[in-house]
């Protein structure tokens, strides 16, 4: 979808979930918001003040028929969420009331907003930058406490500030460079480079940190994928059910029970986790067709995993022949090696002990609790920064910025003339601007706002 915006108009949308509820809020934003309000709404006390919730009657423009008694809050241009004049109608939560109000607004010339259009307007009017717009989205979509915290910190401007600082450090040297180039007769000295190298280095650190956090931030938002992996009958499905606290997967004593991939979400210490159960993996000539398909799927699941729980059953240990060792792990995913069914250990398996990070008995509550805290400790370690960029688009832009900074450093290191250095620094500045939305293009707008929900 592309933003086909008739920006000259005023938009409206229901801002609360559709359906019956205690309240329903309809938002109106644009140059005519106040005019429309005054055609539809009469305050009991006669006057409607800005920022103050005002009680009054809502009526249909033609017939003058009263529809509802409602609260109206008005925000003037420049001081609202969108930066435009904005009015919020707080109605009783009947979908029919909402329908009538939206219909009346439309009859006055108001248009139904596109998803995310309110927030996009706030970026266009300079009310917030792109990073914060993304944070608004995240705040609404966040599925766990952790994700909420990150979104709140982003909205508060943590990444905005660190990016602004890095940008400033890099750009500030430009004036110095330009003075040297345009005033060849002034004796300005050539001691710039050391400072510049430091500034570029600092900016790089900031960007690298953000990139590292972006990968993690994305996972925080969409759910951290934990894949249960191991040979058939290792107890994977049992563990899945135990962690979920419900009988989701079929468990059976015969090997090869799970054929398909099964996903389920649960929350662990504020982290939103997607648990993935897959078919048991084994290789060999006797692996038949259906099983082979399952194995393929299981291996594919590994590629997208953030954490892998590799189970090795103590009653039939694979040891070093465990299929996890046949997987190259190209992205260096975190793997937790677990000896499962630890309660079945009859004779000590000392020579194998060094292979495992953890011994688990799925039937033992304490053992499960230990596993939970082990997992959350690992996730905690990964998310050491409180704010993190969350979208793939932002990650992409960050990487472009990183490249631009690298190129500037390269020019510096190869003693390129000042005007070339200047060009490289300007380019880096441009990349920073794309991140924050100081340089906007349509592709950026589309990337960011198409995923928003209606009314936001």
């Amino acid at each position, binding site marked *: 979808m592309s*933003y*086909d*915006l*008739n*920006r*000259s*108009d005023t938009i409206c949308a229901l801002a609360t979930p559709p359906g019956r509820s205690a309240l329903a809020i309809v938002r109106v934003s*644009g*140059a005519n918001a106040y005019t429309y309000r005054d055609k539809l709404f009469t305050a009991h006390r006669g006057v409607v003040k800005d920022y103050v919730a005002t009680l009054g009657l809502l009526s249909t423009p033609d017939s003058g028929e009263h529809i509802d008694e409602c609260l109206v809050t008005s925000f003037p241009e420049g001081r609202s969420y969108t930066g*435009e004049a904005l009015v919020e109608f707080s109605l009783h939560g009947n979908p029919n009331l909402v329908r009538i109000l939206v219909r009346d607004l439309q009859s006055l010339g108001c248009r139904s907003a596109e998803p995310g259009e309110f927030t996009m*307007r706030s*970026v*266009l*009017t*300079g009310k917030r930058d792109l990073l914060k717009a993304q944070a608004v989205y995240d705040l609404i979509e966040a599925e766990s406490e952790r994700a909420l915290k990150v979104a709140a910190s982003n909205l508060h401007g943590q990444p905005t500030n660190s990016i602004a600082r890095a940008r400033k450090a890099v750009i500030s040297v430009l004036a110095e460079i*330009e003075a*040297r*180039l*345009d*005033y*060849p*007769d*002034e*004796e300005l000295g050539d001691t710039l480079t050391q400072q510049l190298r430091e500034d570029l280095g600092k900016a790089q650190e900031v960007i690298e940190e953000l990139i590292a956090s972006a990968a993690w931030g994305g996972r925080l938002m969409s759910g951290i994928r934990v894949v249960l992996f191991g040979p058939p009958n290792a107890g994977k499905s049992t563990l899945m059910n135990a962690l979920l606290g419900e009988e989701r997967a079929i468990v059976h004593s015969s090997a090869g029970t799970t054929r398909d991939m099964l996903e389920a979400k649960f929350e662990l210490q504020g982290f939103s986790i997607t648990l993935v159960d897959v078919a048991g993996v084994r290789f060999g000539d006797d692996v038949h067709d259906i099983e082979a398909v399952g194995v393929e799927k299981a291996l594919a699941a590994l590629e997208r995993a953030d954490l892998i729980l590799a189970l090795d059953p103590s009653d039939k240990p694979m040891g070093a022949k465990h299929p996890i060792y046949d997987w190259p792990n190209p992205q260096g995913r975190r793997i937790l090696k677990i000896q499962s069914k630890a309660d079945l250990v009859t004779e000590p398996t000392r020579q194998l002990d060094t292979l495992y990070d953890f011994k688990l008995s799925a039937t033992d509550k304490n053992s499960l609790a230990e596993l939970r805290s082990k997992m959350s400790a690992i996730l905690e370690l990964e998310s050491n920064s409180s704010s993190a960029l969350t979208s793939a688009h932002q990650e992409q832009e960050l990487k472009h910025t990183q490249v631009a900074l690298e190129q500037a450093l390269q*020019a510096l290191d*190869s*003693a*390129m*003339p*000042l*005007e*070339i250095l*200047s*060009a*490289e620094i*300007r*380019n880096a500045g441009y990349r920073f*601007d794309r991140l924050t*939305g*100081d*340089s*906007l*293009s*349509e592709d950026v*707008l589309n990337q960011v706002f198409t995923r928003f929900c209606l009314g936001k």
Partner: protein
Amino acid sequence: MSLGTQTKPWDVLVVGGGHAGCEASLAASRLGFKTLLVTGSIDRIAAMSCNPAVGGVGKGHIVKELDILGGDMGIVADATGIQFRTLNASRGPAVQATRCQSDMRAYQATMAARIVSQENLSVHQDDVIGLVNAGANVQGVQTRFGGNIHARQTIITTGTFLGGKLHLGQDKRPGGRAGEAPASGLSKALTGLGLELGRLKTGTCPRLDGRTINWAVLEEQLPETPAPRFTFESTPPPLKQISCFMTKTTSQTHDVIYDAIHSGDAPVYNGQIDGTGPRYCPSIEDKVVRFRAKNSHLIFLEPQGLHTPEVYPNGLSTSLAPSDQIKFLRTIPGLEETQVTRWGYAVEYDFLNPTQLDSTLKVKSLSGLYTAGQINGTTGYEEAAVQGFLAGVNAARALQEKDPFILTRQEAYGGVLVDDLVTQGTKEPYRMFTSRAEHRLILREDNVHTRLYDAAKKIGIVSEDRLRSFERFEEAVQRNLAHARSTTLSPSDSLNAYLEELGEQPMRQGATLEKVLRRPKVEASRLGVEWPSAPFLSAGDSSEHLESKILKRTTIEVKYAGYIERASDAIAREKVLEDAVIPENLFESQLAGMSNEVFDKLSTLRPKTLGQASRISGVTPAAIGLLSVHIARKQEHTNQVNEDTRR
């Protein structure tokens, strides 16, 4: 076409024979139009009101661009220069710039000779005191003595003369330039047509009698050999080349100036001058006040010509009272006993806010009227000259009913200049800097005939032969580049000796010529290689100079290839914005969703492309995004209408 009682109007009438007026009238007449240059004093045509120099950083670029397009400033500067230098020689290729000291009289005389001998061009001495117009259609000018003169296109290039007022200490009197009367009436005529004028000021230095300077104690700056030149042809300078000398102000100098300011003798500080002066070419008063920490400023002593003892002390622009001027001058080493031939002074004048012009320098609200040069808020001979040229070309093209000729920011400093003026306007005298160009790496002196080849061809002033030389030059460069890529250089004693001399690692095994040339300080001319350009050139243009220019260019193209390529990519990206034409009628009604402030700006300035709009101050990237949506909608709408009418 006659003066006074005219039967037929002139095609093009140029008011003012300064640097802008000269180029304007030459360009229009060379494009085949009957042109009249009316100026206050024929003897003062092409006078250098300020320093006896042409070029400099950003300015040298402009002169070279003009030379390729068919302007005359480079030719005259080359013919009358007495010291040529490359500024920023130790910096990169994009900011290296040519500058020359001129023999002022020779410069004036040479330019004047070109003017009076030009076919289709007549010169007439009179003061223009008003305009002839029918409504918004300007049809010529009123003169003080000869009545009305009618013309189809009028170009005003009156420099600092509009409402000019000269300041010297507490003395102030009307004047356009020392010894010349201001233009009266013209300002009123312009405001009468609804144009907005502002006020600016600029100053100049006192001139010294060179025979009273103690040269022996001063540091000498020798002319560069071989002399770098402005013109493509680069024949050696015909005049004798001489040195300049350097000195410095002292803390004593600064004390004297402070005292003068505090006693209320400085017009700049006592409220006598309202106009805004330039930040970058400030008077010595300004420098002393603003850079308190610096207790010395560099001064260049520049001879004004070969046959005059007058010396221009560059860096000492002032409008202090004469008694203060002589007092501070004599605190400067070498000037202890100096005599002043002319006092420094400041001039305050009206200028036309250039946002009232379109990119052809035509006044947007009127037809038949162009303005160029200092009247548009610029300062400098070069800035004036290129504007004059562009106005002359466009006045002619308007008569030919051809599309306008517009230099883009991506291809020339001239383009940057005009675009800045018409989209941003100016609050202080506008001087060119390389930092004003986004694509400095592309806008170099060394590639000027390549980047402006198409433009020169389109204008049609430059001869076929000359265009062919530009092509040959470029072909030679390309051959050299191909050669550099395909040739392997084996290590040799002489080569390694050269590398060692540069502080580079010696070569141990063979490498392509290109690779060797990429090393930071290595130059193509020093590798002991037969370049394909050599025999190629000597067959045709046999100038030694061209040869070295080709090798220099080859070196640059190899050394900075990656960066140049990236800069070209950026230009290509920007082209999307530059090519997005804003429909004329887009601003007829409010574009809601756009703040009133931005809308007002856009609707008064009426940018022609999204690129131009994006450079208007206060127009945010967000507003540009919005504008692009509106343009798309408008186009959709127009297409729809067209389709409907077709059906």
